[in-house]
């Protein structure tokens, strides 16, 4: 990126993602909100190491645990999608490849998020 561009020209171009600072801000918000969430999620995961099927279900179906893990998944799906998008934009400069990878990124995150959320809802509802 040429340093001879004026700040106004840069602002008009809105940077490499063409979306200004919205994603930058969202990345910070999900980082801050992520702190209590990841602490809680790690506790749930560690306390379930080696747990048998019934005790894992008993843990996961408790409303507090289900809500915590749903929020964790939602928060980090936003965070990891933006993070991976930044990595792709940094290294992939072929426009076609970049577009395909960005689509794959969105697809991967959506699939992981929906699968995880649906599993939690199913466990909470029917065990």
């Amino acid at each position, binding site marked *: 990126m040429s340093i001879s561009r004026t700040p106004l020209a840069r602002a008009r171009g809105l940077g490499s993602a063409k979306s200004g600072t919205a994603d930058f801000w969202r990345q910070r918000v999900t*980082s801050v909100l*992520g702190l209590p969430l990841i602490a809680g999620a790690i506790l749930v995961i*560690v306390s379930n190491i080696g747990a048998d099927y019934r005790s*894992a279900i008993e843990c*996961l179906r408790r409303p507090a645990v289900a809500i915590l893990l749903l929020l964790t998944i939602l928060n*980090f799906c936003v965070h*990891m999608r933006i993070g991976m998008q930044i990595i792709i934009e940094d290294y992939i400069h072929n426009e076609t490849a970049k577009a395909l990878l960005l689509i794959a990124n969105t697809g991967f995150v959506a699939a992981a998020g929906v699968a995880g959320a649906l599993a939690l809802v199913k466990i909470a509802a029917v065990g």
Partner: protein
Amino acid sequence: MTDNRERAMDRPRSPDLQVYRPTLTMTMSIAHRTTGAALYLGMVLFVWWLVAAAAGPAAYAVEQRFMRSLPGLIILFGFTWAALHHTLGGVRHLIWDTGLAHDYPWREYLARATLFGSLSLTGILWIIGYLT
């Protein structure tokens, strides 16, 4: 004119990995990105656990058998460290975002605190997990 421009293009542009001596802060920057990407892929494991539990005892048993195998345990251990390292590294980024600790010696202190913090927390967590 053309000459000048060509000469300008030839010069190494900063930051260039082959010109700079590796530093701790640089390594930590790479580690933050690497752990972020590893956690991205590691999300598959977390979702696998939830989906297996939702699917029933048979699917859960398959997931547990993998997680308790040696490769599974190694991946889980790496995932724990990556999560803690990236989280502490993220806090470091958030501190920088407020304008603090960009200068020597605080940036070095923060880099070391992140590394020692993530390693010792991973150790503590696994000792607790192993004992209980």
